């Protein structure tokens, strides 16, 4: 009744959408990085730099959101929900950055089918997150957004299975110990990306449910 007369502060939606776009871009660069390893990884350094840049930009957006939260009388969704969502999104990108940097850290020279599959699943999940966050401010698109969140959760459980398969392959008799250790760590970082996506998706669901 009166709520439509209040200051709307839609910039929060815009900032959240901008942040999730950086996450999607980071996931995309990570995917290209992993896929490109087998072609000699000529672009690897540039792609890692791209992920790092996205992370840095996203950090700035997050800082802006938090500053704005301290300078706004009204917010379109609850303050703590905005904060939680941006934190989950930020965490996703941080882990993506860890994945990208892990390639040099572990000296990974070649990707595996599973690593590529995990990377493409996380790119999918981040893309859906981006679309869900972008639609968050539009009243009529609740069902669509909720659907996207469900898809993110499905992608996460799919990735779980891929990871199991990948780890099983690592521990076959006769495997190289060093290779196994490195890839084991690498896969769990990849899996964390999807866990973070799932957390973010759940947060979006919570927001939708509370504001529907």
């Amino acid at each position, binding site marked *: *009744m*009166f*709520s439509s007369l209040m200051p709307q502060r839609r910039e929060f939606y815009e900032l959240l959408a901008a942040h999730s776009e950086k996450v999607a871009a980071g996931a995309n660069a990570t995917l290209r990085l992993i896929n490109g390893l087998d072609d000699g990884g000529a672009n690897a350094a540039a792609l890692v730099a791209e992920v790092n840049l996205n992370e840095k930009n996203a950090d700035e957006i997050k800082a802006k959101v938090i500053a704005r939260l301290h*300078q*706004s*009388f*009204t917010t379109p969704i609850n303050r703590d929900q905005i904060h939680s969502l941006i934190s989950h999104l930020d965490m996703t990108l941080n882990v993506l950055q860890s994945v990208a940097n892990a390639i040099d850290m572990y000296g990974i020279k070649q990707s595996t089918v599973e690593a590529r599959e995990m990377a493409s699943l996380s790119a999918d999940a981040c893309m859906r997150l981006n679309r869900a966050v972008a639609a968050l401010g539009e009243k009529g698109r609740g069902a669509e957004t909720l659907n996207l969140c469900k898809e993110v959760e499905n992608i996460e459980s799919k990735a779980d299975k891929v990871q199991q398969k990948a780890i099983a392959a690592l521990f076959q008799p006769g495997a190289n110990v060093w290779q196994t250790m490195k890839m084991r760590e690498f896969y769990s970082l990849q899996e964390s990306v999807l866990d973070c996506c799932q957390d973010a998706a759940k947060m979006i669901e919570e927001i939708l449910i509370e*504001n529907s």
Partner: protein
Amino acid sequence: MEGLNMSIWTLALLIAVALAFDFMNGFHDGANSISTIVATGALTPKQAVLFAAFFNFAALWVFQLKVAATIGKGTVDPSFVDYYVIFGALVGALAWNIITWYYGIPSSSSHALVGGLVGATVAKAGSGAPIVWEGFGKILAFIIISPLVGVLIGGLLMVLVAWIFRNKSPYQAGKWFKGGQLFAAAAYSLGHGGNDAQKTIGIIWLLMITAGVATKDVATLPSWVIYSCYFAIAWGTYLGGWRIVKTMGTKITKLNAISGSCASMGGAITLGLATLGGIPVSTTHTITGAIIGVGAATDVKAVRWAITMNLLVAWVLTIPAAGLIAAIFWYLGTKFL
């Protein structure tokens, strides 16, 4: 005519019951004005009840006795009223107040009183009861109008404040409201004292007209009646404030210093207008309306509609229930007094 036979002792007893009703009103409703200042920690509960009681009494110097006039001669025909009717009305209203107070339902003592008066009158006269429809109709209409006005003013105040402070966080904005909140609560307590003490003044006036010790002219009303009524409500507020604080401040919607100020101010303005216009309204309805208005502006989900519905049901019941109890006591009164 019983009225002419009324002994000085009966008169004194009924005035005492009326003052007890007035006291109960403060006991029952006084918390409304302070619930937000206590919930936000601006004052301790003890300070807050003292504060509210003071402004309840101070209303004495602010408002004319227009509401008293509406109750005293504008609801039922004074020439028809006898002390059984007044006895029934007061006891009915008191009983209903105690019931709702016990269950923590912020119902309206004003409507309980009016319901009691009309109920006892109808019990005495049957269907042709001499109800003054102009006054009673006005009261009935304002059952609906006063909370709506409260919603409107409370909501609009909140919108206004949100625009003024749009680039400040609620905490930063809240600093501006430390004084504002007390001001709003003071205004609200003035409105409460003004409107509600006058209802009892009206009843005692009616009683005195019936007993033949006063006439319809305000000048014939002794000033000690006015003072003691204002004192009784202030004392009631002082003693009973804490009980309903919880329902009003936390159950309907979460209030902070700012929304609390807007709600109190919305309630105060509505009450002030009604008191100036001589319309007895429910202070409870008014503040609840204002709280809902503020809640609707800040976050619709913040208004607990289920609890609001509970309140509405209690309000709809108030006039008939108090009327029924009043009728029973009128009957018992004629048998045993």
